[in-house]
Every structure is written in structure tokens, then in C-alpha cells.
């Protein structure tokens, strides 16, 4: 099992579009269980409704948890997505 803490940096957090990218990426690893935990609450990273239901906004710290054959890779892919701010442009001010 692999765990990693990440902080959301994009302006709007895990709303519809970033959440979709996130779930798409997690779904590519069929045989690996991927979960996200926020404040001790653990949810299925392959459910968009659960991901959006986290209400994770900019600055939120999340823990990624993966268990299975591709655990290292899936964590790296998801962390990259978050780190790159989901390729989000800057609509937000300062």
C-alpha cells in the first residue's frame, strides 16, 4: 500500500472538471484500489460523486491511498495532476 499527502493548488479545487480528470486517471488502473482521505474520511477515488462530495477547495490537504499492482504509478499520476493544477488557467484574482 502507498500513501501520499497532497495539497490542492488550483483555484477552484476539485470541482467538476478537475474531479473528472482525477477520476478518469484513477479509473485507468482497474486492478488497483484507489482511495482519497480528507480529515480521516476515506472515499473511493473512482467515484466522481464521492470526489466532488469531498468539497475539496484550494489549499485542502488530501491523502492519496493506493493498494494493488499499480499502486506506485497511480499515486504518481494523480499527484502530477494535482501538482500541475489540472492545467487550470487563472480566473481567480489574488
Amino acid at each position: 500500500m502507498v500513501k501520499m499527502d497532497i495539497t490542492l493548488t488550483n483555484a477552484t479545487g476539485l470541482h467538476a472538471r478537475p474531479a473528472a480528470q482525477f477520476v478518469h486517471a484513477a479509473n485507468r488502473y482497474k486492478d488497483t484500489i484507489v482511495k482519497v482521505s480528507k480529515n480521516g474520511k476515506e472515499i473511493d477515488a473512482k467515484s466522481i460523486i464521492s470526489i466532488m462530495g469531498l468539497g475539496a477547495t484550494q489549499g485542502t490537504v488530501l491523502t492519496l491511498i493506493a493498494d494493488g499492482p499499480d499502486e506506485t504509478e497511480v499515486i504518481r499520476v494523480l499527484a502530477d495532476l494535482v501538482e500541475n493544477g489540472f492545467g487550470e488557467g487563472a480566473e481567480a484574482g489574488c
Partner: protein
Amino acid sequence: MLTGIAASPGIAVGKVLLVSPELDRQETHGVQDDQQAAFQQALTASKNELMALRQRVSVQTGEAAAAVFDAQMLMLDDPNLVNPVCQAIDDGVDAVQAVEKITQTLTALFAGMENSYMRERAADINDISRRLIRHLTGSPQLDWTEMNDPVILVAQDLTPSDTAQLDPCKVLGFATQSGGKTSHSAILARTLEIPAVVGVPGLLAEIKGGDVIGIDGEAGEVFINPDPAVVNRLQQKAAIAARLREELTLLRDHPAITQDGHRVELAANVGHPKDIPMALAHGAEGVGLYRTEFIFMGRTQLPDEEEQYQAYRTVVAGMKGKPVIIRTLDVGGDKQIPYLNMPSEANPFLGWRALRMCLDRPELFKTQLRALWRAGCHGMLKIMFPMVSQLAEVRLAKELLAQAREELLSEGYQLPERIPVGIMIEIPAAALIADQLAREVDFFSIGSNDLIQYTIGVDRMNQQISRLYQPLHPGVLRLIAMVIEAAHRQDKWVGMCGEMAGELQCVPILLGLGLDEFSMSSGNILQVKHRIQTLSAEHCRNLAAKCLAVGEAEEVRRLVESLK
């Protein structure tokens, strides 16, 4: 006239098309013995429809608007939606009712969220629910392509799919009874640049199909069957706005100079190297605040000197010789970085943050300072320290900066002779000893967001008291005046990099108080420049003097308005 929330600027006058989303919710279409099969068919049909819709919207409106449907398509595969519906059907519930029941539960989850952006994601679930039910019951879909003359849409609310597929050639604008500034429809209206007013109470009771309405997306006003005088006024306003937009782009390469020849500098706040082209495109004369936090976020360990150097160099070189103020690491408060293992604190905004933490962890700080020195070779770099409250902090930070230079020189690096050093003024104590601090530095930059919060003692994210967050509070203005005066007395310049610097109603006062540099989101630069060009510095100085003598933000606002 009805008033709502101004969601997307612009003016439109036209015929109303009422969009009523009422569906026949009686029962599942036809004789379906197998409710499970009906549900699976509805899922497939909905997915296909969304796929086609996504493609069309992507071509017509752009990828950003189309991406909304990615989330919706994933929802149709989501075990949290599909499994409970199947379960309910197994328990003997009609498929339509099962979908309604489960989606209502899910909607409630989003509707209860604190963040308004997230709260409005309930609209996505509703949209999915309606689409599924439409397939289950065989109700027809509203077809925008059948619209002939351009219309103004009026609805309770527009779903994401309603708005995303609307054709801006046929829709002049829209007004809805519910919805907020961050709802899908509002965001999309801004992307498409069509006027919209949302959250208009009583809208549907007042308007009938076939009415003509005028909407003002800037004032948030809806006029029902307006008389010619009102139409005329709206058209004039639209013409002025169009002219202003044109004028603004012409201003890009002109300096921000008042009628009586007083010049100030307009700079951009930047959070990422990729924002630099946009800053330049809006005519930024420099970067007044480059936040270095992003290099540290979304990763598991500290970025090394080389990585930081590359990032800073990109920004400094990208501004092509224009000044770039880089702020050293400003974490803590609401910005947490897990791998720094910062303790959780009872009052993070009064806690171990920014320069306070950096001075306690000199190895971390020095890596950043070394990277900054090296980046200084590639343009006009200035360094700024955040969250200063004591003289000793500034002296220690400068000493570490000098040590970093010595180290690099002894390692054989070529470095600039010196780099101008400034501090942020965001703590009232620092503002009050600005005369002392000015001796230590080359410039100040007022961090108005925090200065206002700390001065008034108000958390602006706390909705219950956010009305007390007043940039024009005379207490705040007096502190700003003190800071500018103290700096000018020692020939140091003062900038401001908080949101206040980009707010049109604050500009005349700040100018009158003698602010030298205004740093803001790139998107605000041109309109601030336009405002400054209409002002007289002398009138602004008189205005500022009057504002310092009153007791309430409301009085300050009245004085500012009387300036026009």
C-alpha cells in the same frame, strides 16, 4: 424593473423564450416488464447523448465548456449512483422513482456544502437525473436548433446542458429566477460573453412568453416590456461599454499618468511563470508580486536550489527587463504544505507563518535566497519579505541574504552587485513603525488583504462578519497614509499588492495618499489605467486628506463618489 444578481456583463433587449423544464414524471415509458433493462437503456442513451453534446459544445464553445460533460458522463458510471438505483429497482421501486429518489439524496449532499462553487454542483446531478428520466419516460428534448429569431431565455434555472448547447447567435442573453454568480450558467455566460442576470426573485411570476424584456447584466436589472425611453437608455449604455472596451485595449502601451502629469506604475500579481504572457498582454509595467508558493505545493519534498532558480529565472527573464518583485516563501495561515510538517495551530493567521518560519529554518530559507541571487542575473529582480512585524526580522533576513551571496561568490558564481530588498506591510505594528523599517529597506509593498483583516480584526471568509471587511475604513486608510509618508520621507517608494490596489473606487484615494505602484490581477490593469488617466492628482490629494478626517467607510465612499 426586477433586480437580481449581475452574472455576466452586457445589455440585451429582445423577445422572451420561456424555458420550462417540467417533465412528465408519471411512470416509466410504455410497458416495461423489466425496469432494470429500462434503466440500463436510459444510462446508455444518456451517455451517447452526452458524448454527442460534448463534441458539439467543444466545437461551438470551446473545450472548457465541454469538459462539464466529462463529469456528467462519469456520474452515469458512478457506483454511488448506479448501485443504489439498481438496488431500489430490485426492491420493487419504479425506475423513474428510483432515479428521482437516489439523485435527490445525492443532490442534498452537495446542496449542504459550505463552498458556493461546490454547492452548485448539485445542478450536475439534477441535470443527469432529468436526462435519465426523460429517456425513461420518452419525453421530448428541448431543441435549441429550432429557434429562429434571437431570444432572451427566461427560466427557473438553466441546467448545464441547456446552457452549454445554447447558440450565442440565437440567444441574446438570459435571466433566471434562481442561481448565483458561480453557477454553471453564469460562468458559461461570461465565457460566451452574453449578458445574464440570475437569482431574480419573482421573475417567472412577472413574465409571460412573448413579452419583450431588456436585461442589464452589469447592474443585474431586468425590464419587462420596457418603454422606448428605457430601451434607448439601455442601448446607449451598451454603446458606451463597447467604446470603453475598445479604448481600453488602446491604452496598453501608454503610461498610467493623471491629467496633471502624475505618473504611477501598474504591475501584475503573478502566481505562476505561465501567467507572464498575460501580464504583458494587459500592459503590466512589471510584476509587483510573484508568489513563490506554487513551486513548493503539490509535491512531497522541498524543491532544490536548481529547480527554484529555473522557476525564478523564467519569470525574471520573461518580463524582459521590467522589474519583478519576488516574495519569499509565504506559507502557513491558509496555505499548508504537508511535507514541511508545520504544527497545527489554534490561530494559523497569527501563527508560525511566512518569514517567521523561514527565519527559524535558515537552511530552507537560504536555498531560496541563493536561487534568487542567481536569478538576479537575468533581469530586474527585487526581493520582498512577507509578514514582517519586527525590525530584527528584517535585519536577520538581510543578513542571511548577504551570507547567501558570499557563499555563491566563493563558489565562483557571477552575481549582481546588489538586489533591491523590500518588505510587505501587512501587520499594523509594521505600519506603525514604518519610519524605522524604511531605514532598512529599499521599498514597501502594502499587503492590503491581510492589513485590513488584522487592522479591523475581521476574517473576510467568515460570511457572518464579512461586511465589516472594509478597505475604505478610515483606520486602514490612516495606516496606509502613515506608511507612505514614512517611506517618502526617506526617499523610498511604496507599492500595494492586495486586491484593494485593483479596485476602482480605491484608486483615487490611494493615488491621493501618494502610492507609487499598484499591483493587481492582470485583468484589472487596463481599467485602472483608464481611471487614473481621468483623475487629477491634486484633486485626489484633497480627497485623501478629507477621507483621513472622517470616521466611517460609508463617508469615505460618499467622498469618493463626489469626486466624479
